[in-house]
């Protein structure tokens, strides 16, 4: 009886402790999903929070101005002035948080040319400093006229803010495709090297060589599209005329490169089999 108990204990011990080690089917794979930089996440969450706050202040402002229009009393004017100050501060805070999120995304960006990246980071940082100055003016403003003036100032600068944002967004989109294309080219080279090292038959090598050439051509096509888009972005930047429309055109052109990237990815999956 004691022997049976000992045997069962050993069996259980071996099964629990050593079964996973000897059994090749059990694999504890690591999660391959890319980790987003924490700073980028923090700044994006902050931006969303500020935008929600702005929406509340905006509706309060509309209520206060509507009351002032209707009753035209000093108390209503004071409420409207306070609401205007609050909403303008919330607007500046939202925009500042947005540009900070863009700047952090740009800093963490892979695949971007270093010079272009630093130019964009500098432009975003300059805009953030400018917005801080505007914020200080809003805090100083005490009456309706001063607050309406700061609002006018904001409106006149809005086009420049939009241009800075879309220029940065364009570079982010180009760099994302560039990064994925570089990675695709690197993996393709690795797979082909492994294949050659395994000394395959002439038929297999010939077939794989054709696939490799096709992949290389597709990667070259993507790079051509990216160069063309980058030139276009530079032209728009020089004219300082970036807006949602020009950004949409950039996205459309990038779509061709992205389609080729997806095609190349499917080629690579076949090639690596």
């Amino acid at each position, binding site marked *: 009886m004691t022997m049976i108990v000992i045997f069962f204990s050993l069996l259980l011990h071996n099964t629990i402790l050593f079964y996973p080690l000897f059994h090749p089917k059990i694999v504890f794979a690591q999660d391959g999903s*890319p980790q987003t930089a924490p700073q980028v996440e923090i700044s*994006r969450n902050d931006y969303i929070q500020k935008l929600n706050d*702005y929406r509340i202040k905006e509706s309060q402002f509309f209520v206060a101005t509507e009351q002032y229009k209707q009753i035209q009393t000093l108390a209503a004017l004071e409420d409207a002035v306070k609401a205007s100050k609050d909403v303008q501060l919330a607007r500046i805070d939202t925009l500042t948080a947005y540009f900070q999120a863009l700047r952090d995304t740009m800093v963490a960006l892979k695949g971007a040319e270093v010079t272009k990246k630093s130019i964009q980071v500098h432009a975003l940082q300059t805009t953030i400093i400018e917005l801080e100055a505007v914020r200080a003016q809003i805090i100083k403003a005490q009456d309706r006229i001063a607050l309406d003036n700061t609002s006018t100032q904001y409106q006149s600068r809005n086009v420049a803010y939009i241009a800075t944002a879309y220029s940065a967004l364009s570079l982010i989109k180009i760099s*994302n495709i560039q990064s994925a294309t570089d990675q695709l080219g690197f993996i393709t080279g690795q797979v082909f090297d492994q294949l050659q090292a395994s000394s395959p038959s002439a038929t297999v090598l010939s077939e794989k060589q054709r696939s490799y050439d096709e992949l290389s051509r597709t990667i070259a096509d993507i790079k051509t599209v990216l160069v063309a888009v980058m030139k276009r972005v530079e032209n728009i930047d020089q004219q300082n005329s970036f807006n949602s429309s020009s950004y949409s055109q950039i996205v459309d052109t990038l779509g061709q490169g992205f389609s080729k990237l997806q095609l190349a990815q499917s080629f690579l999956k076949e090639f690596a089999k």
Partner: protein
Amino acid sequence: MSENTAENQTQFMEDQTLFQRPAPMQVTQPEQVSLGVKQVIVQKKKVTPKTIILIVVGVFVILSILLMMMTGVGKNGLQLSPKPSPSPTPITNTMSDLDKAMNRLNQDVIAADPTVNDLPFPPLNSELYIVPKMN
């Protein structure tokens, strides 16, 4: 007459009582039979040391086979010398690296979709005036 004048005075003890039905004769038989059956059952339930050894050996053999199947010892024969842990071969490593690289590429391709913009310019009202401007 001879019955009533029996000289043996203790015989009535063994005689049947008048006006009483004679007890069935087979009353004693079941006792004898059940005793026999009990003896047979007791004999059947009695486990000999030989049976115990056989059961133990049988269980041991079955469990040994199970253990060998689970640890894969049976595939290459029982190795008495300590088996070195299998070192990862370069091919396995390369394959897992390749899989990881492919996964990363897949994530990057998804993130590279230009039509997806997770940071569009904020929808802010640029005309926030207490008294609207007259253009």
